[in-house]
């Protein structure tokens, strides 16, 4: 039975402990705590989950089980410009799949992954509720509506020098 050393910056550890404390270290608040933690770190690496498990006095396995259950949580850092293509039904029937394919082709990574330079990551997203603009693409907080496959290049171009 070999132990694993979980390395964390002191500041990060303190921040995490503060988050847990702000929810009174209640195990029922696990999902709220994870949301906050992901907000701070951008993702939920193993060591963050270990600390949360300890603070809330639940098993790490349970934390991991929860993190992998919900699609909102991620264990890999997202790109600086996370691309989300809405794959809700309204967007689907208006061609979202082709838009997603075009993004994948141009940035050369599959869904759920990040480009090697950490610039873009790509994900499918269930309905953002802007069905009037279908198909909808989000890059970070910016919304692009009525995107056609041939418009993808133009969108990516906006981020050329960023």
């Amino acid at each position, binding site marked *: 039975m070999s132990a694993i050393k979980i390395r964390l910056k002191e500041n990060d550890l303190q921040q995490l402990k503060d988050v847990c404390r702000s929810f009174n270290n*209640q*195990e*029922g*608040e*696990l*999902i*709220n705590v*994870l*949301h906050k933690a992901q907000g701070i770190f951008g993702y939920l690496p193993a060591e963050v989950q270990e600390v949360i498990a300890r603070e*809330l006095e*639940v098993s790490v396995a*349970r934390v991991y*089980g*929860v993190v992998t*259950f*919900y*699609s*909102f*949580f991620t264990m890999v850092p997202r790109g600086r410009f996370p691309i989300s293509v809405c*794959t*809700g*039904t*309204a967007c*689907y*029937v*208006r061609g979202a799949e*082709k838009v997603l*394919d*075009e993004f994948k*082709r141009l940035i050369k990574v599959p869904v759920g992954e990040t480009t090697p330079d950490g610039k873009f990551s790509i994900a499918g*997203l*269930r*309905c*953002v*509720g802007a*069905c*009037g603009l*279908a198909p909808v693409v989000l890059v970070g907080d910016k919304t692009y509506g009525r995107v*056609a*496959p*041939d418009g993808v*290049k133009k969108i990516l171009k906006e981020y050329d020098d960023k």
Partner: protein
Amino acid sequence: MHILVCGGTGCHASSSNLLLENLKEQVDENELSGEVQVIATGCFGFCEKGPIVKMVPDNTFYTQVKPADATEIIQEHAIKGRQVTRLLYKDPVNKETISDSRKMGFYKKQIRIALRNCGLINPENIDEYIAADGYIALGTVLSGMTAEQATKVMIDSGLRGRGGGGFPTGIKWDIARKVEADQKYVVCNADEGDPGAFMDRSILEGDPHSVIEAMIINGYCIGADHGLVYIRAEYPLAIERLKIALNQAREYGLLGKDILGSGFNFEIEIRYGAGAFVCGEETALIHSMEGHRGEPTFKPPFPAQSGYLGKPTNVNNVETFANIPVIFNKGAEWFASIGTEKSKGTKVFALAGKINNVGLIEVPMGTTLREVIFEIGGGIKDGKKFKAVQTGGPSGGCLTEKHLDTPIDFDNLLASGSMMGSGGMIVMDEDDCMVSVARFYLDFTVEESCGKCTPCRVGNKRLYEILDTISKGKGTHKDLDKLRNLGDVIKDTSLCGLGQTSPNPVLSTMDNFWDEYIAHIEDHRCPAGQCKELIHYTVVEENCVGCTACARNCPVNCIAGERKEIHFIDQSICIKCGACLEKCKFNAISVS
């Protein structure tokens, strides 16, 4: 005087643009430009009778106006002030002509109850909500009714849960009310997961107080002093507005201790969802609120018996709650007078897909699909042919032409092989392949299945795989038998509502579009031209003028050809994105 001419897509198709020009010409010719203005407007949502012209301020409503009618309208109506009777709208029932548009039944097609304040009040200002009768229902309940009496109002109203299942809300409350416990909870399900439905989000963004008010009433009725809103984390604006509303309600003492001097206490806190469709199921939602994986558990016990933290819990969704204050203000009888025999009130639909007026609509139960799609929705985009409408999201089915005149309510949709669901309504046209649509929904279910029970975990995966095989032209007749049996068994044996309904998109498309499945299997052909593996883009040589538009837009550079020469598509490189087809102005690209 203003003359409004519908410039919506439907009317545009029936040459409303020419009509507009003619009217403007007439105005100029008659030197009326000082008094009369001709305005192009957005869609009136009445495309079947287009083009539409409306005269303001007298609200005369002309339908099916032809460009040639422009002269008469100007001469008679604008100059002489006489209505052009032959162009007036005739009521389809009593054949009477109606001159004032506000008297047209069409305007009664949409009644906003749940959405009553959306788009009217400032959602971040509680005063505006109060000015619109806000919290009056709560006051009435708290100051003059017993929990039993208030619950009875709910039962009498006939309101059924708007989240999908359609369980009578009052009866649900009554069960929770009768359970004895030291602590009970009220939960608002705002985890709207159906891709293509966004009414709950819109209500929370546009009228959060109505949900808060209803939750407090709910708490009073069942004897709970604590409420939780389980909301999708992907709805930042709704969360923000809800928080503002909660704070304002607290400041006014409408939330907290001794509400309106009644001695009744109620608090509401927010819990966030994290992207799991299955958490719309109430037991899964409760587990998620407790910090667990959102896996449903077998009912009974129902949440009303043992829910959040093992205590009796009543779960309703946002739209259901939004209806409730009105029921108390206007009375159960009033509410029950709207709708059909077994489905009372109105339902909000998120109308989307290949339809002109994508949007949020609210119609009385019993409205037909035809009215929703062709009148309110303005018909099919780009003048294409209606093929199907998908209701109920991943749990629902695809309904066709033959269902268009079915009055929409819980039971009718179920009988047609679909369901109400949360109210997503996706319209599809001739370009949509039904095998692909079924596969799309199964892809969703496979991804969203929690994995707890076998039929949903493995069965849906197999359904998806078979559909995928068929969409690649490699399916067999035996696959169709498998789809049918598997679909039936998954519905019959799954643990929760997700699995019990997930085969609906497959079964309903098989019922209604059998030929399309057969075409994929026998002819290896996709009639809608959507299944990538079964289609080829080729250049129609006699139409190609060599403009190079296709070649320039091809993302993989698989189109060769010099300027002014016939182009050629290299099939080995083509990714079938369809860009060439879209860009070609000469009908020189064909799909086969």
